[in-house]
């Protein structure tokens, strides 16, 4: 498999082999991110294809420093958009509904629109600072659950902990996040 920098160079040269090589190296990775959110093979495959189109349209001018994370973010964002559409059509399910239910403990649900964009930017900064403040294991576990959408079972296998320990660690981390969000005024 090709080095990431070589793949990125192909994008810059508008060589379509860049897509093939990306698919070979990261196809499964992107698919699993999408599937954890969408819980549908068809929707996930389409999202992965949209990811490649998104990457083709972004590089150049962008030159990602960490290609896997760049791809993952695009896949994740596209999956969330598709998920929104699916829930509007009353479709979907799977792990994401549990994950959103867990995260709802940290927020006060309020769908007010006018300040949404500004709030989103501020929220992103707050979350970034929160993630940086966590200890390594806590942070890795939190990201596996709430960025990658991994199940508790698969996280317990990855870290070698029991499922109950994973659940209690995630619970404690969510409580810390809730406290941070309350302090920043997201519960008003």
């Amino acid at each position, binding site marked *: 498999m090709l080095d990431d920098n070589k793949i990125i160079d192909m994008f810059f040269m508008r060589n379509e082999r860049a897509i093939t090589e990306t698919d070979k190296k990261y196809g499964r990775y992107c698919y699993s991110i999408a599937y954890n959110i969408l819980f549908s093979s068809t929707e996930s495959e389409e999202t992965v294809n949209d990811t490649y189109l998104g990457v083709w349209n972004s590089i150049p001018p962008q030159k990602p420093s960490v290609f896997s*994370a760049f791809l993952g973010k695009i896949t994740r964002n596209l999956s969330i958009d598709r998920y929104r559409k699916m829930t509007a059509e009353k479709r979907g399910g799977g792990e994401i509904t549990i994950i959103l239910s867990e*995260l709802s403990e940290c927020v006060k649900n309020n769908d007010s629109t006018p300040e949404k964009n500004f709030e989103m930017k501020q929220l992103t900064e707050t*979350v970034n600072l929160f993630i940086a403040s966590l200890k390594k294991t806590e942070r890795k576990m939190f990201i596996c659950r709430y960025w990658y959408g991994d199940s508790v079972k698969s996280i317990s296998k990855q870290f070698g902990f029991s499922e109950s320990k994973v659940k209690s660690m995630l619970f404690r981390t969510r409580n810390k996040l809730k406290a941070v969000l309350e302090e920043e005024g997201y519960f008003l």
Partner: protein
Amino acid sequence: MNSLMLFEAIGEIDEKYITEAKPVSGRKKIIITFIASAAACLILFFFIPNIPNFFGMGAQEGDIYRNGCHIENMTLKKLSACFDGKLLAENIIGDNDFEFYSKTEKFSENPDDWYSLLYSEYNTDYSIVMHCMFGEEKENWKVDMVFTDEATKTVNINGTLVEIAQFDLTLNYPFKHYVLFQYDGVVYDLRVSSNSEDTVYEILELLLK
């Protein structure tokens, strides 16, 4: 703000944390991991029968074994000693009801870390679980547990004061009595097959010798 917005915001975190959580494995890493796992299995295959010796307990003739671990001659003080600065191999043996595992890390005083060690023997009349919850307030014992009217009391067993949060639960066979108690900063739960409360205290006396 709703949970989906928060989920989206989490998506925008710094890339270094995304790859830190789950480095994307190449084939070389998978092969190395496979070889290391196979080697670890071979080592454990020869090592597991010797775990009691490793803990400094030793096998005695006539002791009852289950999965290479026995509790006939065990006391609470020895259970504590198992974790005191010792590095142990992490392993899970047995089914959901009777599992034995120990941690690879040094016994931690961090309140966010806890270790659970269950020693059990199917044919004996008790099993004991050691939970090491440093920094946890006593009130946290109440999570998922039902207390009787007696709630917490302190008893003197062989000159040692033990705080007991005692409650009665109808557990699945073979255990009928469940006692949660704290000794020397460590929380244990003791499951006893006998209906008699006296048996619980007899077993505690044996464990606290």
